[in-house]
């Protein structure tokens, strides 16, 4: 089965650059590392690739406790012990206690798959390096059973990072890299339309104005992202909020913001704007 080029899918807005990067990664058979703010569609990209190419998607969600080994296989010694004491199983065949991890599953799949290693930066600093060999060679060895697992088809590997940690150089050198910019308004309109096809243009316009204004403010703990905007326009519609209030009052702010301090930042900015007071500070020469 020959893997095609990725063209995009109807439910995902892909920029020209990003599409190119995906295809470079597929053609060269290298993992594609996708970096970008939360909510810029990194996880969804993997879904779109799988859907667009008609391949199965295998997702490996990384947490702070995830070890590289978990992705290869786990030897369930506890089950084996249990069976040996309380079961009627024959426990001499160790292979029945070897459970494939996500990478192992992707290697053993009969058809090519898309393997998403999501949020790799959550794991330990050493984690990416621990996977280098397996990703390079597309195989690993199970000493307990003496079996070597080799990929039947090279999976399309998509790795995402929210840039919580820096990733090791040796790992980076082997990846194709793409940085997803925060969407420009023009692209954002398209994204909104995909998710909520029947919204009033005026509502989208007002909501976007408010949204991008909020994102320009300094001092926010967490800037609202695409997902929050999508939820917000939906909430505004459902709540029947009148259009001229959207920018002036930013109703249903709780849908956009997650942190209490951020509420204060925005409410105080709205207040100063409405009273149109400009504060002037006096400076002395030396402070």
């Amino acid at each position, binding site marked *: 089965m020959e893997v095609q080029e990725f063209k995009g899918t109807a439910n995902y*807005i892909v920029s*020209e650059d990003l599409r190119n990067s995906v295809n470079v990664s597929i*053609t060269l058979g290298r993992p594609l590392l996708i970096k970008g703010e939360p909510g810029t569609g990194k996880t969804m990209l993997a879904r779109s690739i799988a859907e667009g190419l008609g391949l199965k998607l295998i997702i490996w969600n990384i947490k702070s406790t995830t070890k590289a080994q978990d992705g290869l296989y786990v030897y369930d*010694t*506890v089950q084996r012990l249990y069976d040996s*004491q309380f079961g009627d199983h024959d426990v001499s065949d160790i292979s029945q206690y070897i459970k494939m991890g996500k990478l192992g599953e992707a290697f053993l799949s009969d058809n090519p798959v898309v393997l998403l290693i999501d949020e790799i930066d959550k794991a330990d600093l050493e984690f990416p390096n621990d996977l280098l060999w397996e990703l390079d060679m597309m195989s690993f060895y199970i000493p307990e059973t003496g079996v070597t697992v080799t990929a039947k088809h090279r999976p399309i590997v998509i790795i995402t990072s929210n840039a*919580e940690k820096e990733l090791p150089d040796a790992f980076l050198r082997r990846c194709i890299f793409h940085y997803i910019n925060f969407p420009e308004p023009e692209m954002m309109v398209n994204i909104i339309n995909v998710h909520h096809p029947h919204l009033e243009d005026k509502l989208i316009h007002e909501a976007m104005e408010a949204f991008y204004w909020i994102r320009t403010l300094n001092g926010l703990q967490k800037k609202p992202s695409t997902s929050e905007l999508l939820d917000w326009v939906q909430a505004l519609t459902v709540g029947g909020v009148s259009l001229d209030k959207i920018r002036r009052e930013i109703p249903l702010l709780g849908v956009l913001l997650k942190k209490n301090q951020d509420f204060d930042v925005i409410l105080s900015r709205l207040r100063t704007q409405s009273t149109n007071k400009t504060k002037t500070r006096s400076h002395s020469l030396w402070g």
Partner: protein
Amino acid sequence: MFVNFFYELKRTGVPVSLTEWMTLMEALSKGLAFSSLSGFYHVARAVLVKSETHFDSYDIAFQNYFKGIETPVDVVEQALEWLKNEIPPLMISPEERKMFQDWDLDKLRRELEERLKNQDGEHHGGSNWIGTGGTSRFGHGGYNPAGVRIGGQSLNRSAVKVAAERRYRGYRSDETLGVRQFEVALRKLRQLTSRDEGLKDELDLDGTIDATCKNAGRLELVWDRSRKNNMKVVLMMDSGGSMDPYIDLCSQLFTAVNRSTHFKDLKFYFFHNCFYDDLYLHPSCTSRSAIKTYDVLHNLNPEYRLIIVGDASMAPSELTMVGGAIDWDVMNNEPGLVWLERVVKHFKHAVWLNPVPSQWWDVHRYYGAYTINLVRKLFPMFELTLDGLELAIKRLKVKF
């Protein structure tokens, strides 16, 4: 000479390695960049550059190198030329040279030659989906009947022009900052307790299970030493009026430090220009939140890493004179410099982060830099930028 692009990248600060360079050759040999120079621009960036903070340097290098080059065929010709002749003169380390064994150079050359031969007039020798700007197939930024959506802009502009726009200037780590970037940098400030000392007081679950299983099911507990971050940090911030222009920057740092949960302990104090007998728990620096500097020093052992944030810009008398403090209700019996020295001697590791750009620290050109330089004699001072913070953190980690 094509190899000059490699050196140009290095020169502008893109940490490109030979592995990546050879991957680019492979990409060319697979016809990935044939349809346009924009195509080459994107493929080369995706392969060579691994951080958006280096995109701007890439753009600069690209402009410098490709100014006179019109078509991608030239690029491939040059690449081939390089592969044929120039590998020996490329200065590489022995380890890097070893890596060449991973590539079948002859095959690469043959494939590139093949590509060149098959060029038609429109340079569509290879895959033509790269860099065609989407105009040929789907139109741009729109919706096409096959149900494929494309966002963003068309790339059918000259790649050099794209590079010249320097759209990624704002991502340079030496210029911009954000709370997140600060946070990432601060994460490097850690000091793990060692595996070799301390109590074995943490149950090693995997070890226990292994040992128990080996023991034919009789429970055997395995204990290990826990590894925790031992780093303790004290942050002192100038909250005086001359810091106002830097308030955003400082509050970003403050937020980032505050959010860093990985320190064993974290203390904040504030001061106004310089500190004397008192420090303050609140940025307003009113007497209600005052705390004796001596008490602070007594309570914090020398292992605490001290980070001072301030512009170090004040009247010289504030540092050198008894009674020189800027606030009228503060009467200092010792000059500011004495206090600064006392503090820097107490802590083994101390740095000063200054939001004033370092180009203004030159006392011969800026009179205001006089006090900056007095302070710099006592504290290692770094610019409050991401790069500066990283240097400061390195300094804080040095063992004495």
